[in-house]
C-alpha cells in the first residue's frame, strides 16, 4: 500500500468517525427536543473543527507508523518514506474529487428538495453537512477502488 493510499484510507476512517459523531449528536438533539438552529450551527462548527484536527493528527500518525514499519522491515534508523505524489496519484485524486463534487451536488439538490416540499429550513441545514460528509466518504471509497482495481 502506497503512502497516498494510506492517506486516503485515513481520510475515509476520519469521515466515517465524523459521520458517526454527527448522527449520534443529531439523534441526541432530536430525543431531547432541543433540535434548534443554534444547536445545529454548533454541530456544524464542531464537525469542521474535528475534521481539521483529526485529519492533521491522522496524517502525522500515518507518517510515524509508516516510518516504524519501514524501520522494522529494513532496520534503517533513518527510514525513507515514499511520500511523493506522482501522476497516477494526481489522476486518482482528480477522479475522486470529481465524484465527491458530483455526489455533493446531487445530495445538496435532494436536501433543497426537502425545503421545497415544505420541511423547515432546519432540516435542510441538517442534511447539508451530512451531504458533505457522505460525498467525501463516497469519493474516498472511489479513490481506494481506483488504487485497488486500476484504470
Amino acid at each position, binding site marked *: 500500500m*502506497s503512502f497516498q493510499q494510506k492517506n486516503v484510507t485515513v481520510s475515509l476512517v476520519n469521515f466515517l468517525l465524523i459521520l458517526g459523531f454527527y448522527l449520534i449528536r443529531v439523534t441526541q438533539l432530536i430525543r431531547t427536543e432541543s433540535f434548534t438552529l443554534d444547536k445545529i450551527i454548533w454541530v456544524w462548527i464542531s464537525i469542521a473543527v474535528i475534521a481539521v484536527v483529526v485529519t492533521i493528527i491522522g496524517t502525522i500518525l500515518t507518517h510515524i507508523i509508516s516510518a516504524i514499519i519501514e524501520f522494522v522491515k529494513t532496520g534503517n534508523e533513518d527510514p525513507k518514506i*515514499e511520500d511523493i505524489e*506522482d*501522476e*497516477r496519484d494526481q489522476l486518482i485524486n482528480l477522479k475522486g474529487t470529481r465524484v465527491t463534487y458530483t455526489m455533493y451536488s446531487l445530495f445538496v439538490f435532494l436536501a433543497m428538495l426537502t425545503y421545497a416540499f415544505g420541511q423547515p429550513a432546519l432540516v435542510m441545514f441538517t442534511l447539508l453537512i451530512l451531504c458533505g460528509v457522505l460525498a467525501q466518504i463516497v469519493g474516498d471509497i472511489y479513490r481506494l477502488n*481506483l*488504487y485497488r*482495481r*486500476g484504470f
Partner: protein
Amino acid sequence: MGKTQIKNNIRTLRFFHDEMTQQALAEKVGVTRQTIIALEQEKYSPSLELAFRIALAFDEPLTSVFSYGPSRRF
C-alpha cells in the same frame, strides 16, 4: 476498469537490465513503486511523458516498450 489497452514489456526489460528492481526503475523515472507495479500489471496507462522516461531508462525506443491493443510480447 481493469486491464488497459496499452501493453508493455517493462517486466521483461527489467530482467534484461540486470534484474533492475521496481524501486530502482521508479526512482529513475520519478514515480512511486506502486505506479510501476500498476504499469506492469497493465492496470494503469502512463502519460506520454512517463512512457518516454521509461523508454529512456531502458535506452529503448518507445515502441519497444509500449504497444497498443493485443500484441505479442518478446
